[in-house]
């Protein structure tokens, strides 16, 4: 990866409009290598294919197949360096705790604005710079 903006990002949400919206925000921040999944099983299949590198995974909690948290738990062993972000309309403290204790680097509550997504991508970039340094 030459630049942090070359990061490959997986966006998983069972609602097409929300996938496209998140992709649009991410693209507006300079990222272009984006893959999308419409349910938890597809997201897991993509993340299990370790021939392909993913730097960031943005996973909705409520998806058919597996929840975003379940996908993250199963994928983390294969991808310990991936920056997992959980996205959900479930804003309860228990959900946030569960996501973070399971390994998520961030939790974004729907509805969100562009600055929330930008903040979390900037955090990814700061951490990635530290790892590279």
């Amino acid at each position, binding site marked *: 990866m030459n630049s942090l903006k070359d990061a490959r990002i997986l966006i998983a949400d*069972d*609602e*097409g*409009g*929300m996938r*496209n*919206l998140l992709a*649009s*925000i991410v693209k*507006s921040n300079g990222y272009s290598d984006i893959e999308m999944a419409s349910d938890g099983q597809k997201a897991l299949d993509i993340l299990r294919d370790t021939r392909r590198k993913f730097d960031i995974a943005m996973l909705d909690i*409520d998806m058919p197949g597996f929840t975003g948290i379940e996908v993250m738990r199963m994928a983390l062993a294969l991808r310990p360096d991936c920056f997992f972000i959980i996205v*959900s*309309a*479930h804003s309860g403290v228990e959900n946030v705790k569960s996501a973070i204790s399971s390994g998520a680097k961030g939790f974004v509550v*729907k*509805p*969100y*604005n*562009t*600055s929330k997504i930008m903040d979390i991508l900037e955090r990814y970039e700061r951490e990635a710079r530290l790892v590279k340094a």
Partner: protein
Amino acid sequence: MPTKLPSHSSAAPGLDALPEFAAIRRTFEETLPGRLALLHQLAASGQFEELARQAHMLKGSAGNFGRAELGQLAGTIEQHLRQGDVATALGALDHIDTHHQPMKGSLA
């Protein structure tokens, strides 16, 4: 007293500036009548678990597309269904139906 949903409302900050936002919101608005009809179908057939799931999805997306009040009502439906209070949930569903109006600005 139910409050009327505004015909025009703002999307979450910054989203309007995205080049693809108008098209994404237009698709959301175009699919909204079908989604509301689905909520009613699920309620009529007693599929309350799926109704709660669909209401949850609507809660998450409506606020991003300038439909904050709709999102709040969807959240009320989901919350009451999760608590087993079907009657109150169905009352909120009637609210959505009575006060839904197309967002004219988004279809331009």
